[in-house]
C-alpha cells in the first residue's frame, strides 16, 4: 500500500477501480497513488485487488485496483474478485477505466455498472492513441448521454489525473444519475421479477431490484446464490424456469449494444475501424509459419545478451569480492571468523550477487518484450500448440510469466476460468525456467561450454518448455480428461516501452534478487559453511565434516546421475532457493571468494565433465523451483495432494532425465 498526500485529509472515499483487461487500470492506480504495481501490455497482469491511498482536497481517497473484467458476470477467479468487490463491498464510487480507442467493447461493462446504481466516473484512458488515429471523442456528449462524468486521461503520462480526482470527489458527494437501458419486450419480465424481489426488504435495500432482475435473467450464479435461501425464491425460481433464458440473455445483450451504438455515434467522430501499425506488424509476427521461428530467434538473442553482455560486469563484481575476501582472510582474527566471512558469507553471497548483471539484463529484455505487447502475441502463437496439448491459449500467459518468477506465474493462473485447465497449468508452470535457475546455468555453461554458453542456456529454456508441454499433455490425457475450454484473446496494440516502466520493473526484480541474497541465501550458505566446519577441528568441508556425512547419505542416490556428495548437498539446499546451489558449491569447493576460482575448481574436479554438467543444469531446471513456489501451489490449489504431487513429480522428472543424460551421454561423450 502506498500513499500520495496533497494536504490534510478529512473525508474518506472508497473507489473501486475497474475496467476491461489491459486498459491501463494499474497504470492509473500507480499514477494516482504513487504505487509501483506491476503493469504489462497484456490482459491478466492483475489477479488480485490492491489498495492505495491519495489525500486530495480534504478527502482521503482509498483506491482499490481490481483485476480486469469484461462483464459483471464473472467466469474466471480474477474476474470474480472484481465483481464481488463492486457488489459486496459497497464502494462510494466506481471508477471505470475505459480504453478510448476501443469504446464499443468497453461500454458493455459501463452499461452493467450503470444498472448497478452506484456513483460512477469514467476515465477515458489511452486518449492519445485515439487522437493519433485521427478519431475524436466528444466527452460532453458522452457525459450527457450516460449521465456520468467522463475525464480524458493518459495514465502512462499522468495526464488528466487532477480532473479525474475532482470528478471522483464530485461523484461521491452526489447521488448517481438515473440512466437505464430500455429492454423492450423484456421490461414486463423485469417488472415482474422486481415485484417479487421488492417483497424482501433486506435484499431490496441493499441492491437495486432492477439490477437484480436483469442478473437473474442472465443466470448470474452469484445473485441466484444470494436469493436461493430467501423465501421469495419460491416465487422467483418457477418464474425463471418458464422463461427461454438463452433468448432473453441475447435480447438483453442486443439492447445494451444498441445503446452502445448510439453512444458511439454521438460521442465519437471518425471512429471507424482502420488498419493500424499493430495490424500490419501482426501480419508478420503472428504469421502461421514465421511467428514461432521469430519468437525463437528473439529468445535466443535475449539469452546471448543475458550471458555475454553481462560478462565484463560479472568479472568486475567477481574481482571486487575476491579482493574483499582476500583482505578479510588476511586481516580478520580468529581464523574461524575469517573463514566464516571469507568462505561462507563473502564467497556464498558473493557468488550469487555476481549474477546480478545477468538478472538485470534479462528483466530489461523481458520488460521490453512485455511492455511492447509482443509477449501477448507469443501467448496467441502458443494457442494452437496449447490446444493440441489440451490447454487453452490463456495458459500460455502464466507459463511465459514463469520465465521471470514462478510464484506470480502460478498466481496468474487465476485468470483461467476452467478448474481443470488451471490445475494443469499450475502443474506445468514450475518447469518454466525462472531467473533463480539462471546463475546455475551461467556457472556450468560458462565452465564447461564456454564457446556456446548462450546456446546451452537457450537449450535449458527449451527443455523446460518441452517438459511443461509433455506434463500438460499427460495430465490432460490421463487425469483431467476432456477438451480445453474455449479462449478468446484480445491482442493489445503494440506500444513503445517507456524507460520508466521497464526501469521500475527491472529495478524491483534486481532489488528482490539482492534482498534474497542478503536473507535466505545468506542463511543457506552460512548453514552450509557451519556444517562444513563442524565438528570443531575437522578439515573444512573434509570427509569427516557434518556436511560430508549428510552428503554421503544422499550420494548413492545421485551417483547414477554422475554427481558426488557435494553436488548432492548443493541440490538439497537448492530446495530452499535455487541460487543456493551456486552459493553452496562455492562454499563446498572452498573456492574462496571468486567465481573464476569456482569455475576453475569445477573444471579441475575430475568427476565433472560436459555430460554431467549438462545433467546437473537439467536437474536444477526441473526439480522444484523453491519452497516458496510449493507454498504458492498449496495456496492456489488448497490441496496437499496436488502440492506434493508437483514436488514429487518435479523431482522424479529431473532424476529420470539427468539419469538418461549421464547413462546414455556418459559412455558416448564423457
Amino acid at each position: 500500500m502506498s500513499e500520495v498526500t496533497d494536504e490534510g485529509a478529512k473525508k474518506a472515499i472508497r473507489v473501486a477501480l475497474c475496467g476491461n483487461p489491459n486498459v491501463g487500470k494499474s497504470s492509473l492506480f500507480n499514477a494516482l497513488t504513487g504505487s509501483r504495481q506491476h503493469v504489462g501490455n497484456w490482459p491478466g497482469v492483475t489477479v488480485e485487488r490492491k489498495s492505495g491511498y491519495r489525500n486530495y482536497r480534504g478527502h482521503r481517497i482509498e483506491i482499490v485496483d481490481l483485476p480486469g473484467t469484461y462483464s459483471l458476470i464473472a467466469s474466471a477467479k480474477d474476474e470474480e474478485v472484481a465483481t464481488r468487490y463492486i457488489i459486496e463491498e459497497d464502494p462510494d464510487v466506481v471508477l471505470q477505466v475505459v480504453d478510448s480507442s476501443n469504446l464499443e467493447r468497453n461500454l458493455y461493462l459501463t452499461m452493467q455498472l450503470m444498472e448497478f446504481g452506484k456513483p460512477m466516473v469514467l476515465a477515458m484512458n489511452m486518449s492519445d492513441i485515439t487522437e493519433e488515429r485521427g478519431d475524436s471523442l466528444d466527452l460532453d456528449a458522452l457525459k450527457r448521454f450516460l449521465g456520468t462524468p467522463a475525464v480524458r486521461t493518459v495514465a502512462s503520462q499522468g495526464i488528466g489525473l487532477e480532473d479525474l480526482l475532482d470528478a471522483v470527489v464530485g461523484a461521491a458527494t452526489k447521488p448517481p444519475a438515473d440512466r437505464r437501458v430500455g429492454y423492450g419486450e423484456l421490461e414486463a419480465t423485469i417488472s415482474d421479477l422486481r415485484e417479487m424481489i421488492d417483497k424482501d426488504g433486506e435484499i431490496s435495500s441493499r441492491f437495486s431490484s432492477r439490477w437484480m432482475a436483469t442478473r437473474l435473467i442472465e443466470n448470474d450464479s452469484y445473485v441466484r446464490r444470494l436469493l436461493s435461501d430467501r423465501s421469495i425464491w419460491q416465487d422467483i425460481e418457477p418464474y425463471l424456469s418458464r422463461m427461454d433464458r438463452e433468448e432473453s440473455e441475447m435480447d438483453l445483450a442486443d439492447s445494451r449494444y444498441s445503446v452502445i451504438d448510439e453512444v458511439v455515434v454521438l460521442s465519437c467522430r471518425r471512429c471507424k475501424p482502420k488498419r493500424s501499425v499493430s495490424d500490419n506488424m501482426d501480419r508478420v509476427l503472428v504469421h502461421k509459419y514465421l511467428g514461432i521461428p521469430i519468437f525463437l530467434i528473439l529468445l535466443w538473442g535475449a539469452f546471448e545478451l543475458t550471458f555475454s553482455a553481462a560478462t565484463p560486469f560479472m568479472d568486475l563484481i567477481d574481482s571486487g569480492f575476491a579482493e574483499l575476501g582476500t583482505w578479510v582472510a588476511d586481516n580478520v582474527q580468529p581464523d574461524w571468523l575469517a573463514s566464516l566471512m571469507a568462505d561462507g558469507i563473502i564467497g556464498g553471497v558473493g557468488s550469487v550477487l555476481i549474477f546480478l548483471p545477468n538478472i538485470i539484463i534479462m528483466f530489461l529484455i523481458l520488460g521490453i518484450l512485455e511492455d511492447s505487447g509482443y509477449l501477448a502475441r507469443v501467448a496467441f502463437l502458443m494457442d494452437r500448440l496449447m490446444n493440441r496439448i489440451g490447454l487453452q491459449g490463456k495458459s500460455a500467459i502464466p507459463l511465459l510469466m514463469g520465465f521471470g518468477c514462478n510464484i506470480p506465474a502460478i498466481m496468474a493462473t487465476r485468470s483461467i476460468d476452467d478448474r481443470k485447465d488451471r490445475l494443469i497449468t499450475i502443474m506445468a508452470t514450475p518447469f518454466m525456467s525462472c531467473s533463480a535457475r539462471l546463475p546455475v546455468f551461467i556457472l556450468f555453461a560458462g565452465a564447461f561450454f564456454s564457446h556456446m554458453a548462450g546456446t546451452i542456456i537457450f537449450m535449458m529454456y527449451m527443455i523446460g518448455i518441452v517438459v511443461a508441454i509433455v506434463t500438460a499433455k499427460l495430465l490432460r490425457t490421463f487425469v483431467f480428461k476432456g477438451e480445453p475450454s474455449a479462449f478468446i484473446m484480445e491482442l493489445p496494440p503494440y506500444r513503445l516501452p517507456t524507460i520508466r516502466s521497464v526501469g521500475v520493473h527491472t529495478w524491483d526484480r534486481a532489488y528482490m534478487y539482492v534482498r534474497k541474497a542478503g536473507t535466505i541465501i545468506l542463511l543457506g550458505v552460512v548453514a552450509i559453511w557451519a556444517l562444513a566446519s563442524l565438528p570443531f577441528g575437522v578439515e573444512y568441508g573434509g570427509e569427516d565434516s557434518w556436511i560430508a556425512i549428510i552428503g554421503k547419505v544422499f550420494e548413492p542416490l545421485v551417483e547414477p546421475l554422475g554427481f558426488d556428495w557435494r553436488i548432492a548437498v548443493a541440490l538439497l539446499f537448492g530446495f530452499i532457493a535455487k541460487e543456493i546451489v551456486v552459493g553452496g558449491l562455492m562454499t563446498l569447493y572452498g573456492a574462496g571468494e571468486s567465481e573464476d576460482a569456482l569455475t576453475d575448481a569445477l573444471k579441475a574436479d575430475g568427476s565433472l565433465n560436459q555430460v554431467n554438467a549438462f545433467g546437473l543444469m537439467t536437474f536444477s531446471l526441473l526439480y522444484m523451483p523453491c519452497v516458496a513456489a510449493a507454498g504458492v501451489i498449496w495456496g492456489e490449489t488448497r490441496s496437499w495432494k496436488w502440492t506434493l504431487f508437483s514436488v514429487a513429480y518435479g523431482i522424479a522428472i529431473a532424476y529420470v532425465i539427468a539419469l538418461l543424460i549421464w547413462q546414455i551421454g556418459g559412455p558416448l561423450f564423457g
Partner: protein
Amino acid sequence: MSKDDRYLTTFGGLLAFLYLAFGVFEAIGGIGYDGEWLGALCVQGNVMDAFVLLVIGAVFAFGLRERRDGSAFMLIGMALGIVFLAIYLVLMGANALGLLIFGSEHMEGWTAMDSMRPGLYLGILATVGGCIWRRRLSPSRLSRAGA
C-alpha cells in the same frame, strides 16, 4: 503497387537472397565444413546464427510472395536485421569492455574480428534500408506503454 513499394520489394528481395545465402553458409560451417572462403566471409559456423539468418531471410522471402502486405514483411525483416545488429554490437562491445577493464591477458587474445559475423554486416545493410524507409518503420508511430 506504388513506386516506393516497388523499391522496397526490390531491396527486400536482395536482403532475402543475402540472408538466406549466408544462413546456408553458417549452417554448412556448423555441420563441420571448414572452407577458407567461409572464414573470409567471417562465417563462424554457428548453428544458431544460421537459424537467425535463415528466419530473417524467410521473412523477406515471404514478403516477396505477398501481394498486399509485402511491405509489412520487408519492414519487419529490416527491424529484425537491425535488432540482431544491435545484439551483435552489444556482444562485441561487451568483449571490448572486458579487454579495456582486464587487459588482453584476461581476454585471451580477443580482437574485434573474432566477433564479426554475417548478421553484423547484413544488419548494416538492413539499417540502410531502415534509414531509407524510416518514416514507415519509425517506432514513434506506436503509443507509449504504461508506467
